[in-house]
């Protein structure tokens, strides 16, 4: 039993790394663009399937797909926001009305993306073997693809954090999240920043999907679980807080691996209880300021 502990922790950090990417995208889309993207999980699923198709049909290495998907999804997200959500934002009488209508529009997207995936990739869960051989790190035997996925997840998350904190664009994004109107007065093109953020959120979801597909089998129904997970993580870390999403993701990943090891059927109810307690006691999250 003792021998399993490092393995559980490693698996937990891997799952947590993917959750962190997912939740960071989700929280960015809500925190800046004010869209509670119910279709977020579907982006992950779509990215995972795209990677597999690229790998099977054209033999493109998943690590190369990482770049392709990240860019492609960013463009899709950017276009989605500048066509669909910007229009809604302009026509909504109040921020609250925009939150509802954008939620409903995202809900429509969920149907469209999931149905498209089911039409393109029908049938059972898919699985592709990529770097599927065991290696030893610090005396723990792990799969090579998991190590690769984990290191990419952490590097991308950190790179993203530094982009937000250290670059001019990141500053503009944070300003727009803080107060959109004032940011506009300061000469920031908020329309572009919001679309950019929505695109980045989609891009992060895409990256998470690619990394996921290198380690686990994928199915067209997996998206919903990830949307739910993203919600729990961002409530844990504070809705709109990027570092909160990262830390929340890691915590939840480790908890989920421990629960999966001991009580697989009980994992979801436990998360949910955490979720409820957090919502009721501390809706701003563990990292929240207010």
């Amino acid at each position: 039993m003792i021998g399993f502990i490092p393995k559980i922790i490693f698996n937990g950090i891997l799952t947590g790394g993917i959750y962190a990417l997912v939740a960071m995208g989700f929280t960015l889309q809500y925190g800046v663009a004010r869209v509670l993207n119910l279709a977020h999980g579907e982006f992950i699923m779509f990215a995972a399937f795209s990677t597999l198709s690229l790998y099977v049909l054209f033999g493109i290495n998943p690590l190369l797909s990482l770049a392709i998907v990240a860019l492609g999804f960013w463009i899709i997200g950017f276009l989605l926001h500048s066509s669909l959500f910007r229009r809604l934002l302009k026509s909504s009488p109040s921020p609250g009305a925009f939150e509802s209508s954008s939620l409903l529009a995202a809900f429509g997207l969920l149907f469209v993306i999931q149905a498209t995936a089911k039409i393109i990739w029908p049938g059972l869960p898919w699985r592709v073997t990529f770097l599927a051989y065991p290696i030893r790190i610090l005396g723990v035997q792990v799969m090579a693809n998991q190590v690769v996925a984990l290191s990419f997840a952490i590097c991308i998350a950190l790179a993203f954090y530094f982009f937000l904190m250290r670059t001019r664009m990141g500053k503009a994004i944070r300003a727009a999240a803080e107060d959109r109107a004032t940011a506009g007065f300061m000469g920031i093109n908020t329309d572009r920043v919001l679309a950019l953020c929505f695109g980045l959120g989609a891009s992060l979801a895409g990256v998470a999907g690619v990394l996921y597909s290198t380690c686990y089998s994928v199915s067209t129904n997996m998206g919903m679980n990830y949307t739910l997970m993203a919600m729990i993580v961002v409530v844990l870390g504070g809705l709109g807080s990027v570092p909160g999403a990262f830390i929340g993701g890691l915590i939840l990943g480790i908890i989920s691996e421990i629960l999966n090891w001991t009580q697989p059927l009980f994992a979801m109810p436990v998360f949910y209880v955490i979720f409820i307690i957090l919502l009721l006691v501390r809706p701003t999250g563990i990292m929240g300021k207010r």
Partner: protein
Amino acid sequence: MNIATFASKRFLVPMVLVLIVVLLATAPLYTALGTIPLMTTILMYIILAVSWTMFSGPTGYISLASAAFFGCGIYASALLFERGAALLPLPAVIVMGGLAASCFALIVGLATLRLRGIYFTMFSFGLLELARRLFQYYEFYVTGVRGRYVGNVDGNTVYYIMLAILVATLLTVYFIRRSRLGLAMQGIGKNEEAAAHMGVNTTKVKVLTFALSAFFMGATGAIVATRWLYVDPTIAFNLNYSFLPLLMAIVGGVGQPYGPVIGGFAFAYLRHVLQSKTPYYFMLVFGAIMVLVILFLPGGLVSLIERGRHRLEGLMSKLWKGAEAEQHADT
């Protein structure tokens, strides 16, 4: 005196409604074989859409938990109306299904309806998953059964019960709309803080209507289970029963009581037509319609109809006046 307004407001509408109900009630006598099961399904979706709108329409709190209440009703039926071992007669089972869903909504509502807007939506989204896992856990570890067989009920009986539930739901919506409760809900939807300052106990109003709308979902679940014959937690707690009613209500339009009825009817029928030919395409079509409606027709199909009606009424009154003027000119 103006015959047009008299006819449309006082007399015509109730009469047409009664006529529709009578036509629906006598449907098993004259419709072709196989129509009644389809009509039962359509009625089910209409009930779900209407009862979703009962709470979410006026208050603006988007609930994604319909399937959880629907599933509660299904499981009430599975436990109390098991094949060969029915504990209660059918009508009692249906009421129990509704009550089970109501109690669940009451507990959940008390805990969460203090949350505003987006947090409530997130919470309700996960509720279904929670309910499903809890039932799975319970069935797996405590009772040790995978699924349950539900007693068989004659198709026409199911249809009549469904129709009765729909009529009850619509009557409830109608009576609530202009009552204190209905006005309080609309107040919450417009401006919750202002409503609270006017002396509306917002949490109480929200929890009450949430539980009331759950009752009809649960009752529908209880009767539907008798058609499905076999249920397990995955079948009973299906996300689609949260999503489709919402979609139907939004596309139909939540501003008028008949909006979700139109949306429910149109989509349930469309689903039947598309699904028999190509699975999954209906989802694609539904999603696309949803996005387009949100973008270009925020009031739903109802707003289109209302706009048409206003234009028609304007035209009618103009004609009426014109005719009167001509009469005056003659004399």
